[in-house]
């Protein structure tokens, strides 16, 4: 019987986090997801900066999600200053975050999670026996990066997306090239789906979840939306995000946790598919059926399966956007004009790991007075602890090493982005 289990650093996740499990009288007394990542006080760093400096700083909260941080931040600034952007800009931003989604999911599914399911310590070791799969994964990942490079100007920390629009618009030839690559990428993603459909997903962590995600703007599945929906049936405008994410400071962690009505909840691919999966069409719908994600899953390890499904969705959606842009032709429009004023605004988007919120207030000189950023990983932390507890309870008799490995798997299933979650500590309470 274990007394306590400590994992100092969970490998193959972004950032520094550990797990501590304490037992008492054969029962789990405490499960902590410890976050050691150094705090960076992002929200106080941007106080006093002018509205145009906020995004370049806050996108640096996280590299893997920098595209979606950028877009969300821009939407929050624009919302606060009353700036309206064109349909073309919205399409290009959507494309940019699809690129981020593809890159992030490919990295996670192929390089970080698959080695788990196939029992390898790393993707490099896995490459020895599964070179084909690894190469496919890397190619898909690269495609996600290429989209971000073409639209955002850089794979990590995009520069080209700015307030009101874009510095430079992509040339039709560039979009055509992307289209070609995406068509191939879609096929390759199917290979990933086939592979994952065959995997046996372990069931040591079955536990019901409350899911949260943005309600898509249109009729289809989307990473953008104005309303937050929960599997409990609750619904809020994104401006009321704080009613969903009620933040708590916990002593064992540098990150705050989000609770909704005193219950942990889950955001991310699995939540999106659970809540909005019925809106999937085309190839993505086929993939959903193939992967058996027709009804909300209780197994967090299936989040990786949902990510594979979203690879298909993101490729299809990217193709759709490119087709629309090519059909209507790229209009050489300047960025929407800015009129400085005091105001507050919220931006939200579905990041690879779940819903991301940026909320800002500016004074009449356009200087930031208050910023609040809630990242998906911060929202998931409480749920991770819930699932860890579940897993430990199911695996009481497991030898330590194997138990540790399985707990790591649980954490990894969330694809947590720890530096993201530890951007915080606001000045005011």
């Amino acid at each position, binding site marked *: 019987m274990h007394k306590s289990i400590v994992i100092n*650093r969970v*490998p*193959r996740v*972004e*950032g520094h986090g550990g797990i501590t499990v304490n037992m008492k009288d054969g029962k789990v007394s405490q499960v902590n997801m410890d976050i050691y990542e*150094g*705090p*960076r*006080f*992002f929200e*106080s*760093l941007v106080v*006093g900066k*002018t509205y145009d*400096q906020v995004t*370049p*700083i806050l996108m*640096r*909260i*996280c*590299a*893997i999600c*920098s595209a979606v941080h950028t877009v969300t931040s821009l939407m929050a600034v624009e919302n606060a200053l009353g700036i309206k952007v064109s349909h073309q800009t919205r399409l290009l931003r959507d494309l940019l975050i699809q690129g981020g989604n593809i890159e992030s999911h490919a*990295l996670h599914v192929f*390089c*970080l999670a698959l080695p788990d399911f196939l029992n390898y*310590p*790393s*993707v*490099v*070791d896995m*490459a020895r026996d599964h070179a084909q799969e*690894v*190469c496919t994964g*890397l*190619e898909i*990942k*690269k495609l996600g*990066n290429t989209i971000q490079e073409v639209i955002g*100007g*850089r*794979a*990590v*920390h995009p*520069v*080209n997306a*700015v307030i009101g629009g*874009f*510095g*430079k618009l992509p040339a039709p030839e560039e979009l055509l090239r992307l289209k070609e690559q995406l068509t191939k990428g879609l096929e390759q993603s199917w290979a990933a789906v086939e592979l994952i459909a065959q995997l046996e997903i372990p069931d040591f962590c079955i536990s019901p979840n409350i899911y949260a995600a943005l309600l898509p703007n249109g009729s289809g599945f989307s990473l953008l939306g104005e309303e937050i929906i929960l599997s409990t049936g609750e619904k809020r405008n994104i401006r009321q995000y704080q009613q969903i994410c009620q933040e708590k*400071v916990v*002593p064992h962690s*540098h990150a705050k946790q989000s609770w909704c009505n005193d219950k942990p909840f889950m955001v991310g691919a699995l939540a999106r598919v659970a809540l909005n999966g019925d809106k999937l069409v085309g190839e993505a719908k086929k993939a959903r059926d193939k992967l058996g994600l027709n009804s909300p899953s209780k197994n967090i390890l299936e989040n990786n399966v949902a990510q594979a499904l979203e690879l298909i969705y993101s490729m299809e959606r990217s193709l759709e956007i490119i087709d629309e842009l090519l059909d209507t032709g790229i209009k050489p429009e300047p960025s929407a004009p800015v009129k400085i004023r005091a105001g507050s605004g919220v931006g939200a988007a579905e990041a690879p790991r779940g819903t991301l919120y940026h909320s800002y207030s500016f004074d009449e000189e356009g200087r930031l007075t208050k910023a609040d950023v809630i990242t998906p990983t911060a929202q998931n932390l409480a749920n991770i602890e819930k699932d860890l507890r579940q897993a430990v309870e199911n695996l009481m008799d497991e030898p330590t090493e194997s138990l540790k490995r399985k707990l*790591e798997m649980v954490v990894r299933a969330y694809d947590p982005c720890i*530096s993201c979650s530890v951007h915080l*500590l*606001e*000045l*005011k*309470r």
Partner: protein
Amino acid sequence: MDKPKVGIYGLTGCAGDQLVILNCEDELLDLVGSLDIKSFSMAASGADDQCQLDIAFVEGTVVQPDEEKLLKDIRQRAKLLVAIGTCAVWGGVTAMKNEVDPKKFIEQVYGPAGKVFEVIPPQPLSSFVKVDLSLPGCPIEKEQLLRGVASLLHGDLPKLPNYAVCTECKMAEYPCILVEKGLPCLGPITVAGCGARCPSYGLTCNGCRGPVDDINVASEINILKEKGFTWVDIQNRLRTFAAPAPPLNLQTLEEAKNA
């Protein structure tokens, strides 16, 4: 020749530079083939944290005493220590307000009785240990990383550009953002290596790679003043990515302004 033993570490930062390593999709398998990677927690389990290293790549800044300890330990074990990314080289965005004691931030959140994290003002690695090579960039440039690794494999330190972004901007024939658009570009004082990425999109360089050697910050301040920027905004702009760099020191800037 034995493959060089390599460790890749992340201190506090966004993991962007480690991600750039993972983003070398086409070269990744060659890269891991020519190096004996002993530690890369972001990508692999089973790190060896005791062994001697030929090269250590370290990302991020030091903001906690534990990180200082880790960094010193890495330094002890590594023949060469390479700082990757502007955070490691100059402190990065996290260090832009490092004149404010972070303990204040913490106290305000937790109150005096709460748990007190030990936090130190974010500093570049070179404040704690000897750094053999600095690859700046927020994030680092893939091309520079690969060339750098090749040079290290060859037994040399790579030669990095020691001139301003303007030079690359003009080599690529982009219209000057300062001269043509009148926008506050930091190209003249920022070290090249990104191919003048932002000016290529018609946007100002924000200085994400940190200052070039021997910058004329007084002249840059003059230019920004002429464009109508307030002193606060000029300081903010100059001190976004590399505030701990000596030429961007608050006092130095004050002197440069009055020069």
